[in-house]
């Protein structure tokens, strides 16, 4: 009762469907690991929040968001999540970006463009150094805690 392979032919005949070797499997796993880790919400200690209100989008927040995602990929950072929020109220310095990283005070950067986004990742997130030229405010804290309860 030995199985006669019906769905695949001789490996030599079908060069396009190459069977993997151990090394190739490992390489494939390594290349896909990072992509799927990004989906994992555990183990992310750093947050980048891009203000995507109408004012933000008009000032180019979309480009900034893409720049962050691309740079995170380029630097292979797994611990950072990029989310978006509405307008933070600093419409005069849009696009605004809030960065929350361990051992760093939470910061709002303003007038961020693609180049600044790259600098934020390299300096603020990877080297724990604030990008001073673009610091505009710390996030406002709710005056009434817990909705006044």
């Amino acid at each position, binding site marked *: 009762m030995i199985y006669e392979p019906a769905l695949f032919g001789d490996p030599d005949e079908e060069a396009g469907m190459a069977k*993997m070797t*151990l090394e190739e499997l490992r390489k494939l796993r390594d290349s896909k690991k990072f992509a799927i880790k990004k989906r994992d919400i555990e183990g992310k200690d750093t947050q980048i929040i891009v203000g995507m209100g109408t004012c933000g989008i008009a000032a180019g927040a979309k480009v900034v968001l893409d720049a962050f995602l691309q740079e995170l990929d380029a630097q292979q950072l797994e611990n950072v999540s990029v*989310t978006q929020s509405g307008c933070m109220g600093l419409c005069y310095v849009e696009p605004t970006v809030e960065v929350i990283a361990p051992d760093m005070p939470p910061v709002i950067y303003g007038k961020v463009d693609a180049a600044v986004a790259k600098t934020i990742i390299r300096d603020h997130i990877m080297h724990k150094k604030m990008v001073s030229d673009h610091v505009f405010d710390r996030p406002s804290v709710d005056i009434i805690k817990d909705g006044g309860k």
Partner: protein
Amino acid sequence: MAFRNYILVCGGTACESSKANAIYEALLAECKAQGVADEVQVLKTGCFGFCEQGPIVKILPEDSFYVQIKPEDAKELIAEHVVKGREVKRLLYTKDCGRKHARVEDIEFYQKQFRIVLRNCGFIDPENIEEYIAREGYVALEKVLFEMSSDDVIAELRTAGLRGRGGAGFPTWMKWNFTRQAESDQKFIVVNADEGDPGAYMDRSTLEGDPHSVLEAMVIAGKTVGSNQGYIYIRAEYPLAIKRLEIAMAQAREMGLLGKNILGSGFDFDIEIRLGAGAFVCGEETALLASIEGKRGMPVPRPPFPAVKGLWGKPTVINNVETWANIAMIIVKGGDWFSRIGTADSSGTKVFALTGKIRNSGLVEVPMGTTLREIIYDIGGGIADGKEFKAVQTGGPSGGVITKEYLDTPIDFGSLTKLGSMMGSGGMIIMDEDDCIVDVAKFYLNFSVDESCGKCSPCRIGGRSLANLLEKISKGNGELADLDQMIEIGEAMKKASLCALGQTAPNPILSSLHYFRDEYLAHIVDKKCPAGKCKSLISYNILPDKCIGCTACARKCPVAAISGERREVHVIDQAACIKCGVCFETCKFGAIEVR
């Protein structure tokens, strides 16, 4: 290409039946229409387990948990959540307390769970082998092919203490070892995916959500025991699981993870799917093997066990789907890691399918040793509609009822058997005060009687006699002597039946007689059914002081058994009444009582 949002749509059978596929398509179309198709990855995953609230859509990285989604909601989800970054509050999961649960980790349903078998279920796209590989997939196979000897694999399973998840709990390493030691020119690997218990869908969900976890384990077993051919015996009623298995097998073959010379190791292994026609007895291993051989699905006496003399008389490793899904993780993380989860004699986790009168029906995986109370109240959210808990049936038609007093029993193989029930494959059916225990016993027994293959007389004749006695009791003709006779027949069936179907068929009766003898006595002595389920023992009556003569009941009665003038008290003709209960449900004034 970098994605900023991941939209996971539940693609289990339960959600698929409520249009998950249409939701998936609508989300894809909306992403395109709103110009974010390049930035968002939309995936169809396996079951999230929270079937009560399905169809479910989860959006990452915000981890927003959207429930009861309709295809029409796709536009709003993309426009609000993805484009503007605002969660769609009205679609988020809300618990009765009124607090909005936005994140999965906040939801009580998931808090006590621990996922090994369902590790990828609801996270990866089961139709894409690369996603499985990216999550440590086929790492275990690498180890087994290139680093570990057969002895190492068996030793690892032995340290892990993994026991068969199909219900009987036989140590997996022993089964494998018997087959490994057996001398034969050909050996076989078989997956038992003939999940037949009413209300059980653990195996289906595992295969739908993570088919490669089972395929990888089969190749590992093949290498360990010296087999080149595997079979997956799956019921034809599971079309989605079959489809995903076929896709997974084709992808694995294409990559050289199945077939000749796997990963260049020189080891050959391939798998075929065999469809079962849905006979319950074919979940029994010897009947299952007969069915694969093309014979009628009937059990044969054991020993010899399949491990030594199985498919076509050759040594065969046969394990249940959930057992297979544990193997790769044990090899990757080590038997020691696995043995520390769960209890001393039952290590690891168990997947349960919660159904019946429970608020959150669904699929849950908990460490062994979790109590029934934690599963039913903390994870399951308690009894639906504020009713009183009565009992829980574990082990399907082969198990028994467990009552309130034993809710704090930690669940493992030994403890449930001690209570007169069994672990079974993991179906858990919750009953409330409205369920009549005689009626429930009748349901399970009739199931076993219908599914008996008829080969041995204790099961064939004993089952029928028990069914007749139960019928007699529920009709109000029972005598006290019937109870003793049922116990006698039941005990005989347990001892003399050929396979587990007959041996366990009397369990629902024996255990319910033990815990709910009063209820049987009420049926026999008082001729009453306390839960109001046994139609012969109840009557519907109109209370004259409450009836205002609205005629609503008379108009609804399908057999015109209710008579009375407008604004006058109505009367039910007991001789004509068929006890359908429509009048009871119709009356707005509580004027109809069940006696």
